[in-house]
C-alpha cells in the first residue's frame, strides 16, 4: 500500500545492523592489493539528512509568523478521531478564531468535504502513496489558505493517519499534537515513543467509550509522561462534547 514502505521486506534487511564492521577506514588500503581500484579518501561530515525538509519547515513557520497565524499538526493512527475532533473544533471556533485547515490523506477528498461549511478554508493534500506530509507539500499549499479578508489566525494540519512516519517530518507547525483514542491501549506512547516524545500536547479521544472499556487512566498518563514529562494532556469526546471546552480554550490561548 505504501510506496515509501519496505519495512516488512526491509526487516529481513541486508546490512541495517552491521555495526560490527562499520568503520570505513578498514578499506583504506585496498589499493595495495587491487590495481583496478583507485585510491580512496574519506570525507567526514555531520550533516542532518532531514535538513532540507527542516529548512522548508522553517520557511513555512516564518510565512505563518509574518501573518500572525499559529499552526498545529495533528498526528494519530488512522481512525483515532482526528476529523471528528476537527469538525467540532471548527464549529466551536467559528466566529471566534479564524481557522484554516490542511488535511492529508493517501486518496480522496472525503475529509475536506466533511469539514466544509464551518467557516474555515480547507485544502486537501492527496499524498497518493506517501504515508506522511512533508514541509514541501505543505509549503506549496499555504498561499491558498488565506481568504481575501485575511482573518486566519489558526492553521490546523490533519496529517495522514499514521503513528510512525509523520513524526519524522517537521511541517512548520508551532505545536505537534498527538491523538490517542481510548480503544488503542494505554501503552501506545511507550510503543511509539518518537511521536509522543515530540508532541508537547496529547489528546486522548473517544472518552465516551471509557465506561465500556477497562481503560486505565493513570497508566496511560504515566506512559505519556514517561516519554514526555511536560506533556499537556486533554481527555475528551468529540462525540458528546465532554472535555472539549479545555481543548478549545487551549487553542484560543495559542492564538492570543
Amino acid at each position: 500500500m505504501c510506496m515509501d514502505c519496505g519495512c516488512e521486506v526491509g526487516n529481513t534487511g541486508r546490512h541495517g545492523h552491521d555495526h560490527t564492521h562499520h568503520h570505513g577506514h578498514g578499506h583504506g588500503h585496498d589499493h595495495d592489493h587491487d590495481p583496478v581500484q583507485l585510491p580512496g579518501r574519506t570525507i567526514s561530515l555531520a550533516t542532518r539528512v532531514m535538513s532540507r525538509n527542516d529548512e522548508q519547515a522553517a520557511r513555512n513557520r516564518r510565512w505563518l509568523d509574518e501573518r500572525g497565524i499559529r499552526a498545529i499538526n495533528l498526528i494519530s493512527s488512522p481512525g483515532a478521531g482526528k476529523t471528528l475532533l476537527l469538525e467540532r473544533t471548527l464549529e466551536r471556533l467559528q466566529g471566534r478564531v479564524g481557522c484554516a485547515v490542511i488535511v492529508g490523506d493517501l486518496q480522496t477528498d472525503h475529509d475536506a468535504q466533511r469539514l466544509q461549511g464551518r467557516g474555515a478554508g480547507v485544502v486537501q493534500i492527496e499524498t497518493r502513496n506517501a504515508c506522511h506530509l512533508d514541509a514541501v507539500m505543505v509549503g506549496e499549499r499555504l498561499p491558498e489558505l488565506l481568504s481575501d479578508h485575511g482573518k486566519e489566525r489558526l492553521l490546523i494540519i490533519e496529517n495522514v493517519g499514521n503513528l510512525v512516519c509523520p513524526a519524522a517530518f517537521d511541517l512548520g507547525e508551532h505545536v505537534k499534537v498527538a491523538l490517542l483514542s481510548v480503544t488503542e491501549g494505554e501503552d501506545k506512547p511507550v510503543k511509539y515513543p518518537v511521536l509522543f516524545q515530540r508532541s508537547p500536547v496529547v489528546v486522548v479521544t473517544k472518552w465516551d467509550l471509557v465506561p465500556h472499556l477497562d481503560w486505565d487512566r493513570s497508566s496511560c498518563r504515566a506512559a505519556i509522561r514517561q516519554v514526555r514529562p511536560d506533556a499537556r494532556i486533554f481527555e475528551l469526546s468529540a462525540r458528546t462534547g465532554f472535555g472539549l471546552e479545555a481543548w478549545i480554550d487551549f487553542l484560543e490561548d495559542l492564538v492570543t
Partner: protein
Amino acid sequence: MHELSVAMALVEQVRECMEREKFASVRQVTVSVGALSGVDGRALAFCFPLAIEGTPVAGAELIVEELPVRLRCMACGTESEAVEPCLLYCGSCASGQVEIIAGNDLILRSLEVT
C-alpha cells in the same frame, strides 16, 4: 516506513557533497540513525539501493550505525544514555526532567570516495 523519502534526501546530500568536493564516485556512505530519529536503519538500508539507482551515487554501499539516545539531566546535570528510547530519565538521579542531546537525528557521517 517513510524511509524511501529519507533515502532520497540522503542521496541528494551526497550529490551536493560530490559537486562541492569534486570527486567522481562514492564507495561507501556512513550514516548514524538516532534511536529517536523516527527512521528505521533496516528499512533505510533496504531503500538505499533503490534511491541510488540511476544517480551518480549508484554502486555505493550504505553503512548504518545505530546511535543511542543521550540525555542531559536538568536536575543534576549528569549526561547518560537512555536504556530504551522510551525510557527518558536520568541514569544517575532518575529525574524525568531531561534534555535529549543525541539520538534525535539521522546524520550523514562520512563518505568514502574516489
